[in-house]
């Protein structure tokens, strides 16, 4: 999708207003995909439950189907065997989609510096937010999630990459 | 609308159903074609009921529905049994009288 506004100021403001609306919708309705792999998953569950309550940000709709979810929280170390599965599920998610690498292991391999574990999930899928910690506490994940919301709010869903590049050079 | 239109439509539908029974070999589609023939007859019954101003025709349709329901239940059970024994629902492959 892309839209060329040709420098028309009225059109540009309208497109910007629409983009803001879309971004607002996307940022406040991020449905996570259940992808707990190891100990971090326990902290992820804690984030969704009573004390921390991810639901406040409209993100408690944990969907089991990749087709209906927007955010993959990779919670735990990704073994070499899990890698292809993770990539497969990521490909099955519908655009736009985001990934949070939760914990040291999924960010960079963490303590598992060996042949069996993929050294950072960003080797197979693009990661938007890295959350440090082993495991990160729920408030860390919440902070990462809010960072992701900020990132989504800065997106330009209606403008093509070419136009964005031109805007930057101006 | 004159009743002839409804009767001719019913005739067309009945012929389509008969064609399906004669032409297809898939037991399930043959089954549905038989249902189509029953429906065509139902349509003419309803047409006659309207023509004569007598609800008896509609009551007959009610009975046809009952018979169709019973037929479907038993027929589908038989088809599933045949499928379990022979692994096919093509009636050309079911030409011996034993399991």
């Amino acid at each position, binding site marked *: 999708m892309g839209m060329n506004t040709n420098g028309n100021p009225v059109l540009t403001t309208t497109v910007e207003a629409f983009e803001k609306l*879309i971004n607002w919708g996307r*940022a*406040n*309705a991020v449905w996570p995909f259940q992808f707990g792999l190891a100990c971090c998953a326990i902290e992820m569950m804690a984030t969704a439950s009573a004390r921390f309550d991810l639901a*406040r940000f409209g993100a*408690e709709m944990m969907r089991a*189907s990749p087709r209906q979810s927007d955010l993959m929280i990779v919670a735990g170390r990704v073994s070499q065997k899990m890698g292809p599965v993770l990539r497969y599920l990521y490909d099955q998610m*519908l655009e736009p989609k985001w990934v949070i690498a939760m914990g040291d292991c999924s960010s960079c391999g963490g303590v598992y510096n060996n042949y069996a574990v993929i050294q950072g999930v960003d080797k197979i899928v693009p990661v938007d937010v890295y959350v440090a910690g082993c495991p990160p506490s729920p408030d860390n994940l919440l902070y990462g999630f809010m960072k992701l919301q900020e990132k989504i709010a800065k997106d330009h869903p209606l403008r093509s990459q070419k136009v964005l590049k031109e805007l930057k050079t101006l | 609308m004159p009743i002839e239109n409804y009767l001719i439509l019913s005739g067309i539908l009945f012929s389509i159903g008969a064609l399906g029974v004669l032409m297809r070999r898939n037991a399930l589609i043959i089954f549905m074609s038989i249902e189509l023939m029953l429906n065509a007859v139902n349509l003419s019954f309803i047409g006659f009921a309207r023509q004569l101003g007598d609800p008896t025709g509609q009551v007959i349709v009610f009975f046809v529905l009952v018979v169709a329901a019973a037929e479907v239940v038993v027929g589908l059970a038989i088809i599933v049994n045949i499928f379990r024994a022979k692994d096919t629902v093509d009636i050309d492959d079911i030409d011996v009288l034993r399991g």
Partner: protein
Amino acid sequence: MGSPPILAVLAVIVAKALVVIVVLLTAFAYMTWLERRLISRFQVRIGPNRVGPFGLMQPLADGIKLFFKEDFVPAGADKVLYYLAPGLAMVTAFTAFAVIPFGPPDVQLFGVPLFQISNPNAGILFVLAVTSIGIYGIILGGWSSNSKYSLLGALRSSAQLISYELGVGLAIVGVVLLAGTLQLPEIVKEQSGFFFGFLPRWNIFVQPLGFLLLLIGATAETNRPPFDLPESEQELVAGFHTEYGGMKFAAFFVAEYVNVITASGVATTLFLGGWQGPFVDQFPILGPLWFVVKIFAFAFFFIWIRATLPRIRYDQLMDVGWKLLVPLALLNLAITSVIVLIWPSLGGGS
């Protein structure tokens, strides 16, 4: 007073239908919000509260997000049926509401009752017919996705819906016997007045067993927990809509919640006196208000049940349907017929 112009009548009917559709869509949106807030409360959480006051804009954000998702058809899917299925589910969900009266029939414009879209002679049977068409949305969605989870979900739901339709139908027949008519406004009128001067003459007090059976059956028919086996995520990913995302998934979502509202409406009409309540005789406009209040009570109940009960096993589901619901509904029917026979004043039969 001559007969009103046909165009005006048509305009009134169309306007009625449009208003009902818009109201139902809004009700759907806020039912998702209510469900998320209430379940959060039941689980000692807070629930969506960041967008708008009390998170009231949450449904809007969800809608915008789903609307701008990628449009997608799985490989090997039957494209026509894949697109048809969510539409079918949604349309039938809305259509079923057409015969439910949400206000007194005396309020008329150009001779058209304002508080009911249509009043066919078959009345309650129309609801059953339309919901039975609604099954096709689920079956087609599950089959056309070309996925084994979807297919299993569709198989489960078709078996479940057929089983529970029987119990629901039989439970409804008890009320129909009492009222002596299939038309819903007449059934509501039948329930006006009081027992012993204080107890409203609602069918729930005459037919408590029938009400209970209808409630269980309606929960199962609308695929709500604890009967949400067609979409149980622990076993079937997301059941029949596993392969659906974006707006097509939203359509299934709308269908599910509108079905809940319709089921609540039917239960209200049949057992809780429909739009009847204090002061409706003096101010007919209060009718829809009472109706909404009663529907809200049902919606709250359905959400409460969801937060409380665990999902039952599939064989238990079938057991409840065939070994409990149907025999009890038959018993209820037999008792009701005997009572109506020996005490005709209770039943309105001609």
